[in-house]
C-alpha cells in the first residue's frame, strides 16, 4: 500500500486533489481511499488531505503518519509546517516552487523534487490553481498512477473547457518532471 499526504491552504483544493488521485488510482485497477485531515477548515489556513492506494481493498482507518509521498501546493507552508514529517526515507516530496530542491534546504532523507506548478497553471489554465497540475507532476515523479487516468478523472469531475485546460496542464507538469528525472 502507498500512502500520500497533500499539504495546502484552505481553498487550494487539497481535498479535491486527494479525491481525484483516488479516482485515478481506481481507474488504474487499484483500490483507493481519500480523506481530509478532519478539522475546521478556513480559507488560507494550512490543511492536509490524504490518499491511500493499494492492490487489495483498504480496511485501515487511521490517519497517515509515515507517507510514501508528500505533495506541497504552497512553498510558503515550509516556514510553518513540517512537510517532511514522518516521510519514509525512500519517499518523495514534490513541492510547487520556482526554487530547486537544493535551494529549499529541506531536512529529510527523502527525495525532494520541485516543479513550478503555478507557472504551468497560469500559462494554461490562467489561474494559480495548482492542485490538479501537481497530480500530473506526481504521476511523472512516482509512476504510482497513470497520467491518462488523472486526466480522465479531472475531465469527469470538471466538464467542458475547465476540464480540458486542467488536463492539458496536468500533461505539461507530467512532461516537465519526466524531463527533470531523465
Amino acid at each position, binding site marked *: 500500500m502507498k500512502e500520500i499526504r497533500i499539504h495546502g491552504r484552505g481553498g487550494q483544493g487539497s481535498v479535491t486533489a486527494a479525491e481525484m488521485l*483516488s*479516482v485515478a488510482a481506481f481507474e488504474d485497477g487499484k483500490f483507493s481511499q481519500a*480523506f481530509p485531515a*478532519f478539522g475546521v477548515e478556513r480559507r488560507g489556513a494550512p490543511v492536509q488531505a490524504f490518499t491511500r492506494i493499494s492492490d487489495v481493498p*483498504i*480496511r485501515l482507518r487511521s490517519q497517515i503518519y509515515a507517507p510514501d509521498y508528500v505533495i506541497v501546493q504552497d512553498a510558503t507552508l515550509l516556514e510553518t509546517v513540517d512537510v517532511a514529517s514522518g516521510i519514509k526515507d525512500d519517499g518523495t516530496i514534490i513541492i510547487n516552487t520556482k526554487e530547486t530542491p537544493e535551494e529549499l534546504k529541506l531536512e529529510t532523507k527523502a527525495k525532494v523534487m520541485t516543479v513550478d506548478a503555478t507557472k504551468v497553471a497560469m500559462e494554461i489554465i490562467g489561474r494559480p490553481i495548482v492542485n490538479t497540475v501537481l497530480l500530473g507532476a506526481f504521476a511523472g515523479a512516482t509512476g504510482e498512477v497513470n497520467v491518462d487516468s488523472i486526466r480522465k478523472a479531472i475531465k469527469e469531475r470538471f466538464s467542458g473547457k475547465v476540464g480540458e485546460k486542467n488536463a492539458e496542464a496536468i500533461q505539461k507538469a507530467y512532461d516537465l518532471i519526466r524531463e527533470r528525472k531523465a
Partner: protein
Amino acid sequence: MAINVADKDRMVVVEGSYAVAHAAKVCRPNVISAYPITPQTHIVEDLSQFIADGEIPNCEYVNVESEFSAISALVGSSATGARSYSATTSQGLLLMHEVLFNAAGMRLPIIMTVANRAVSAPINIWNDHQDAISQRDTGWLQLYAEDLQESADMLPQIFKVAEDKDVLLPGMACMDGFILSHVYAPLVLLEQDLTDEFLPTYDPENVLDPANPMSFGAFAAPDTYEEFRFLQEQAMQKALPKIEAVAKEFGEIYGRFHGGLIDEYLTDDAEVIIMAMGSILGTIKDVVDEYRARGEKIGVLKVRSFRPFPQEQIRKAIKDAAAVAVFDKNISLGTNEGALFTETKSCMYNSRCDIPIIGYTVGHGGRDIPKESVAKIIEEAKKVASSGITVESQFLDVKEELL
C-alpha cells in the same frame, strides 16, 4: 465479504455520504426531513439535490427549523404510512431525544442514518459513538457499519427489519462521522431494481386516515402502560432473528454480506478476541492479520447490532477464548466503562462461563486510533489471558501532561 473484489467493475469512487444518500434514494422514501446546519452531513444535501432533480418520485422533502422538528415531522409522516427518513448526528441527535421515545412508543419504523460524532462540551465535531450510545434506551434499533459499502447496504436492510409487522420499531443506521461519511472509496451504488426486489412497499395495518380515524401514542394509565413497554421489548427480541435473516437475504440478492447481528473474523480457534463496533474494525483486522502471520491466534468479533443486543450470539462467539478485549468509542461516566464492555460482561454473567474481559474507551472526540494502539490492547489482552486482570476498564491513551 464486505468488499467483494468481484464487484470491481461495478464500483465507483464516491464519498460515503453520497453512497448513503443514494441508498436512501433507492429505498423509495416518501418523506425526508432535515435541518441542514452544522452538525450535519452531506447526506441530506445530496438527497435535496436528488429531489430537486426529480430523481425521487412520490417523495416530500421537508426543510425544518430544528432537529427536534426534523424527527417530529417524521413521526407525523410515518403515522400516515409514509416511508420516512432523515440523517443526523451529534447535538442534532441529542435534541431529538424526547421524540425518539415517541417514535418508538408509537411503533413507527422511521429510519435515520446517524453519522456518529462526539457531543459538547467542549465543542468537538469529530467521530465517536457517544451520540448514538446515549440513545440506547429510546427503543430504536441500532446497527453499526464497518465501512462505506456497509453504511449504504445497511439502509434497505434496516428499513426491512423495522417495517416487519412483527417488529415495527424505528431504527438508526450508524456510520462513523468523518471516518466513513467524508471518505472517498470505491463501492457499488445500490441498484434500484435489486432494491425494489429486496424491499417491499411499506404497507402498515394502522395509519392516520381521516376516513378511518384512530390515534397514536394516546394516554395509557398504570393499568395499561406496562403492556406497551412489554410489547416494545418483545418487538426488539423478535427483531433479533429478522436482522440475521434480512442480512442473509441481502447477501443472496446483492452478493454482499457484512454480518447479521454479529460477524466473526478468525474467532474459531482464537485465544484472544477483540470486540468492537464501527469503522475501527478495519484497522483491528489489519493488525490481527499481522498477528496471524506470526502464528498468534487472535480473532475479531464485530458487533453489528447494538439494539437489540445479541447476547446469545456474543456468548457463543467468545465462550472459548482465553481473554476478550472490548473497544468502546463511548463512556458511561460514573462507571469508567464503555457500553459494549458493560453489556458484554453482563451477558456473560450467569452463563457459567468465566472468561476475563477487559475494556478500553477509545477514540474520544476523534482521537486517532493507529495500529500501534490496537497492538497495545492485544498485548494487554494476551497478558490477561495468562495472568488475569489487573485493570478492568480504562481510557486508552490519556495524555498525563494535559491533566
